[in-house]
């Protein structure tokens, strides 16, 4: 996978993850073009898009569009399911997720994405395992927020 974008129906970017090195200018251009193209498509149309030399796979969940760019020989349908699995993960984590959850907690959404997809490849397909990893980190986070610093603890060991 080359990159993943989340944007709203109004065309506002909500999340972006790039797995290929690109300049900021290029990223902006790609984002602008893609958001326009995808938003212009009708709901009955195919979820796949040939765009430049890439395939775009997108799916709309409520007011959010999830959009992935893959190479030509990759499997489009499984990419669609990657999106779906990600939404499932978000849903499980936030508890019936909505766009606002992602807007206000985008860093959490990134953490989940990083546990699921790493460097553009599916890292862990078991829903349980992904969430376990996130919860583990969250747990430490909670402790860190309490006066007793975890850093100290680790620094000593």
């Amino acid at each position, binding site marked *: 996978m080359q990159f993943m974008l989340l944007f709203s129906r109004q065309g506002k970017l909500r999340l972006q993850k790039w797995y290929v090195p690109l300049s900021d200018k290029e990223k902006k251009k790609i984002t602008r073009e893609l958001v326009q193209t995808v938003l212009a498509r009708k709901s009955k149309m*195919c979820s796949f898009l040939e765009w430049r030399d890439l395939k775009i796979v997108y799916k709309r969940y409520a007011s959010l569009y999830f959009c992935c760019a893959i190479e030509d020989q990759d499997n489009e349908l499984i990419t669609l399911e990657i999106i779906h699995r990600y939404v499932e993960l978000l849903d499980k984590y936030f508890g019936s997720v909505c766009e606002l959850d992602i807007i206000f*907690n985008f860093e959490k959404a990134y953490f989940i994405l990083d546990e699921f997809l790493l460097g553009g490849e599916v890292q862990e*397909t*078991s829903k349980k395992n992904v969430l376990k*990893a996130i919860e583990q980190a969250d747990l430490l986070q909670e402790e860190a927020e309490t006066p007793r610093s975890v*850093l100290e603890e680790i620094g000593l060991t």
Partner: protein
Amino acid sequence: MSDVVERTLGVLPALLGQHEPGAGPGGAGGPHRLSASSRLGSLIRNITALTSKHEEEKLIQQEITSLKAMVSAPTTSLRLMKECMVRLIYCEMLGYESSFGYIHAIKLAQQGNLLEKRVGYLAVSLFLHENHELLLLLVNTVVKDLQSTNLVEVSMALTIVSQIFPREMIPAVLPLIEDKLQHSKEIIRRKAVQALYKFYLIAPNQVQHIHDKFRKALCDRDVGVMAASLHIYLEMIKENSSGYKDLTESFVIILKQVVGGKLPIDFNYHSVPAPWLQIQLLRILGLLGKDDPRTSELMYDVLEESLRRAEINHNITYAILFECVQTIYTIYPKSELLEKAAKCIGKFVLSPQINLKYLGLKALTCVIQQDPNLALEHQMTIIECLDHPDPIIKRETLEILYRITNGHNVVVIVQKMLDYLKETKEEYAIITLAGKIAELAEKYAPNNEWFIQTMNAVFSVGGDVLYPDIPNNFLRLLAEGFDDGKEDKQLRTYAVRSYLALLEEENVFYPQKFLQVMSWVLGEYSSLATDVDPETILTRLHNLLKKTFVTSETKAWIMAAVTKIASRASFSKTVDKLIQEFSSSLDTCMRQHTFELKHLCEDKVLMKGLLPFDASCNDMVVDASLSFLDEFVAEGLGQGAAPYKPHHQRQEEKLSQEKALNFEPYGLSFASSVSSSGIAGRQSPTGLSFGSDTSGNSTEMGHKETNTLKLEGVRKLWGKEGYLPKKESKVGKEDEPQTVSCSSLLARRVAETPVSKSDQVSSLSEEEKEKQQLASTLFVGLGSNANVSLMGKVDLSTQKFKRKSKVDKAQSNEEALNMQNSAASDFGPLVDTVPITKEDCDGDKHTTLRKPSLCSSDTVGETLQSVKKPGLDDKLSDSRLSPLSLFADSNIEILQPSPSSQCENANKTVLLPSLAEELEELPHSEVAELCQSDALALYLCKVWKDDSLLLVVFVSNKNPSALNAVNVVFEKEQHFQILESPACQFPVIEAQSVGHCQKCVRMDKLCTQGVISGFVNYQSEMETHLEFSIPLSLLDFIRPMKMTTEDFGKLWLSLSNDVKQNIKMPSSQDSISAALSVLHQKLKLHIVDIIGNEGILACQLLPSVPCLLHCRTHSGMLALWFRSPCSALPDGLLYQCQKVMEES
């Protein structure tokens, strides 16, 4: 409408406020939601409340300013910094510049506690890319975290490494990550594998030595770790499938277990067992089984089971089915499986779900050439999809049609493609589609009119985004023509008429490329349309020149056309007007062209000789040694000019004068030989370093240039600089004033004139019938007997516009002298062509001149001298004053093209394949057999010439009778480029004899190993086709580079790409000189100098990419340090070094 938006937005902040504290049903107790009072929360809320982009900008600028102040304040706590980073990520997502915070993100990752570190790493991964320079600062943090005992820290470090990591720092973390492969926690093992996968992608050589650890990962008891290792295997098998055939069985067993539901239930996805894993495995199996019946045999069972098991009606099963079908069609075919796969494709194609339909079409596209009957089976669906409202479906359908095009259905299919081309706005789609249309038109055009019209449409729609080779090929086709002269003339005349008609329209904009094509054709062939007054054409061109939208490049093309037409008319008012108008033009190029035109017009005889009619395809021989200038040089020397010294010599002299102290590295020895010729001197035709033995070499250079000239053909002649004249014109003046009554078949009208029968029927009958009709036109020739034509590419007989083979015309040395002059074309077209023209006219010394191989430089010089006009002579010496010193002391060798140095030349020798004598002296490989059939055997010998890799292929006829029409064709390969044409033809090879052909190969894209494949076909009793492949390695393209220590030092400092590595020295060679001599012998590296325990070596990748190597020995290790302007070259060489050191 806007009112509604406004109100909605107005409500939003309130909504957000409500939502915040409660945070949804799952929020309680679970993960934290940001508190309503947080800065980020209010920022987001404020932005959402804004109505205009402008206000947003203002707000964000404010925010950024305050962030900037905050992050750089020393009092800011890490906790606050974390908040800042999150806000900064948000700003960046909105598209605002936030690079000032990057360094703080790195700091946060380094100093923060777990919670802050996590955000720091996240910010780094979002802000930076793997080539960002700041990333180096992260390496220490990563190393520290990898060594931490805290699982979360290790896992965070591995996560960042798997996403972005600087390539050159891999050695710093590699051992740590390798250790993690044995970690007790599966999540750590998994991430470590993932990190190694990343390393493999960015620097495969660095992880070469841990392949056995990958195998261990593949056998890991945890499914996640095993699945992660498949990513690496997929990549490695893609590179080299033959090395992993032994793993086929393991993959099959794993897939069997997965399909059989043996995995933990966690990995199920919608009750399908581990679909991601299945797809990955199917893909690997496809790669392994390709063209390999034995390996494919192993997987038939499991593939069948996969097909059978995937039966639930859900996207995920379709995804697996699709992959299965692809694998089945990729591996060695088995009829039962193919049948099932075909049925499966049918399911996709007929599905009402649009996504599945699309994939069905995609699958059809892939398999249609193997199984044309599938196209017939689904023809009605294909027809329906042609008019589908979704352009993506349409495009894929056109792709299918493109692959089944043949001589019978080309008109209809191209029409459909043109329709789409006109609708689409997307540049990429236009480029690819226009290329395909041009290809089909060239291959299958039913008649000339259609061809020209189609190409007109391609040019006018595709315009300036087209690949440049489309117009080039088109022009070449027109220029070279076919074997039938009458046909050629018809085509050209038609083109001329259609362009005139197009230009007649006022206020129509055509793309620049199209205008260039038009002007070239008009310039070359307008006289073929005898009923058109040249004055009319000139007026049209003149009008074009005045248009503002015409670029200056196009103007140069137009001026060239005007010049050519003017040479054929005795007098033209338009030309005079044009000269007057543009000789004071502000555009200097235009002024120059006008000036040239003016002077040519003053001497009509000269002009006619200069611009011959229809001679664009004649071959040229270039005298790269510029021997015809000898006379001139001698004269200059006689008058006391200083002899020419090559650049490096001057440099050296200058240095030795200046030299007092040498502060440059490696400045120990001071070789005075002319050794830097490797870099600069090779092509310079100076006598200094070129003794008599190099003369052959320079001849060869000349030849090579000839060949490239031939190849590039049209483009070279009419380049940016305008027109390099060399035409002859015998077709004099036609002056019948007549208006053009062209059929006015305009590009834009092509759409309205489809030649399909179906359209005529359609108007009277109902929709169904229309489709049936269309189907019959589209799928004509797809029946069982037409299998051959279906394969498209094999169908040579119907190729309408087959390009003439270049070999036929190699012998035309009519223009030999022309060429010699164009070698000196820098001096401007006017001056440099004068001598030939005179020669052409006088013709008294024709015979000596026509055979450049026979005449000595003296005679050429003399001849040139004798035919120069005195006036022009002055001009000549004027303009060549500066080069005077250039050739002062040169003893330039005479042009002596020997037949064997011509790479193209396919000549014959005795039966036993052996190299020609002059090649025998060069380093070369053994003559090895490539492939063999009853009738003939193919042998190969690689000759490592100084400046290229020469492949010599011997075709030996073992038959007692002659073989006819033997064709050796090399296929295009992305890494390599075969100079000249990729084919070699032998009209006949006598019984028991050997033909041989030579090809120069260049490496275009760096790779350590690659293959050029190709085939040979020949006519004995029946046509036979034999395939072969030639393995090539990076080393084939590496040559020693001779240089002095001092040059080395200079070059070293100027190069930026570094690779360092320590390798173990074999015990047999513990001294530096022994080790270096191994590198010298095996890798052809040139040893520049050895000083103590250090040594420096140099080599170059052909044609001229240097790579320098510095070696140092210490305690049994050899420290290698490479530098090169090409970033991948050091890696490749390092790998080779490791290999040879291990072997020795």
